[in-house]
């Protein structure tokens, strides 16, 4: 189910993808099941090329290591990532699913309410919740940088 999710989302808007994610998370009865799903997502994350696993690409503010790389494919921004912790990988996978293969301006404009709607933040430890905020910030920063380049 999860392996081709990143491909399926190619022609959807950020809002549509976020709605899908919210729907998926509402299907589960409890947080153990949601974590199992996050872990599955983590295992299917499009991995960052090893050459980009540099300190420059490390997201600061995360307790476990998270690397994110962004590059333009036409007018769309494509993210790849990795982490040494699988749940963190799952969380970044959710974010990448929502924001990858989108135009930088759309990423900049996107709201992130879906994070609150799936209740992810309150089920993370404070350090992980901070990490999540740092991840979103980093994805948006990449979008700002590439938007400037496109202009």
């Amino acid at each position, binding site marked *: 189910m999860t392996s081709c999710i990143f491909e399926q989302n190619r022609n959807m808007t950020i809002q549509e993808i976020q709605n899908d994610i919210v729907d998926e998370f509402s299907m589960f009865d409890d947080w*153990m099941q949601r*974590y199992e799903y996050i872990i599955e997502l983590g295992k299917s994350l499009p991995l960052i090329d090893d050459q980009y696993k540099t300190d420059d690409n490390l997201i600061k503010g995360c307790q*476990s290591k998270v690397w994110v790389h962004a590059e333009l494919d036409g007018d769309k921004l494509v993210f790849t990532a990795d982490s*040494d912790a699988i*749940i963190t990988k799952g969380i970044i996978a959710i974010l990448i699913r929502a924001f990858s293969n989108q135009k930088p301006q759309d990423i900049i404009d996107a709201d992130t309410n879906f994070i609150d709607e799936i209740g992810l933040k309150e089920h993370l430890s404070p350090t992980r919740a901070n990490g999540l905020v740092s991840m979103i910030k980093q994805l948006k920063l990449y979008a700002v940088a590439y938007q400037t380049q496109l202009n």
Partner: protein
Amino acid sequence: MTDRSILTNKFDVDTIRKDFPILNRKVNGQPLVYLDNAATSQTPQQVIDVIVDYYHRYNANIHRGVHTLSQEATDAYEVARQKIQKHFNIAHSYEVIFTSGTTHGINLVATGFTSFLKKGDEVIVSAMEHHSNIVPWQMLCERTGATLKVIPMNLDGELIMEEYHKLLNDRTKLVFCNHVSNALGTINPIEEIIEAAHKVGAAVLIDGAQAAAHIKSDLQELNVDFYVVSAHKMCGPTGVGMLYGKEEWLNKLPPYQGGGEMIAEVTFEKTTYADLPHKFEAGTPNICGGIAFGAALDYMNHIGFEAIAQYEEELMQYATEQLLTIEGLRIYGTAKHKTSVISFNIDGIHPYDIGTILDKLGIAVRTGHHCAQPIMDFYRIPGTVRASFSFYNTQEEVDKLVEGMKRAKNMLL
């Protein structure tokens, strides 16, 4: 899970648990299994009552008021100091300095030593220190030009004492070591460390933060120069602790902070400092915390440290055996002498992931580097999962931890 009972002494853990209201709560819909005692211990009702009683009846500032409430609060605070003195078998109550905790005590001594050290002097720390027992000494060395030397450790997490003896020489001025490692649980041979340091004329500070809840130390017998503890690791509240210093050292050390309470006489030309212990207790202290610290010691002594140590030893042995039945689990810190801490990882799984799943099952453990990054670097790992036990934990809780670990492993691998 097992029919083997570890309760070989008369220790009645079920009755003791009733003293701790927090142990009844649920976390994520599951009964709380609290195994993060090395970070902070839980508080018994007897201590909570003392805190409530203080605010109900005699909350006042101490040592300066003429009124009854102030007198009562001062008396209670000083009685607490005497309880601490008695507990650690300290010669004089004025050698007990109330601090905000271990870190405060260490910084007080490290700052005070600035004027005693010069370039070329050496200070020694152990390889298994908490950051709070590394950084203040590094700062001291930067200020004075002294050199920091490190006692190395072996893979079992034991200090290599031959190397320690080689490090000592007539330039050694200070030695710092924790009594028990917070990350590995190793009980360090502080008697030997203290004796050898004194032979070359060096002073010794022992960080007792992790030891004090498990080992009742006789500080006169240890002949240690400084010993620091935090109340919150031994059933007391946060924000209060003790610095013990030998009288001669406390007289030599300059005051750490200036303020009220620590003076004898103040003019704009000159201030003379108050006698011990007030010289080091500037400002209004954590009065209620100090009184509750005394109550916490009463509580633990009522149960008895021998009984606590024996029970915890059996619990840790049981937990070690049970955890090792999980394939791929490795324990870090396998010293011959250790207490109440098991640090471990499962091959291929990040400790944060395990901690997250355990939390969903109501099990509180610590994950990460435990403020001891040099130890993690030594083992070349990002961190560990740490289960740390107290006398109110049970065999059933250990079983839940092991079951939780198995479940986490299945999910994560």
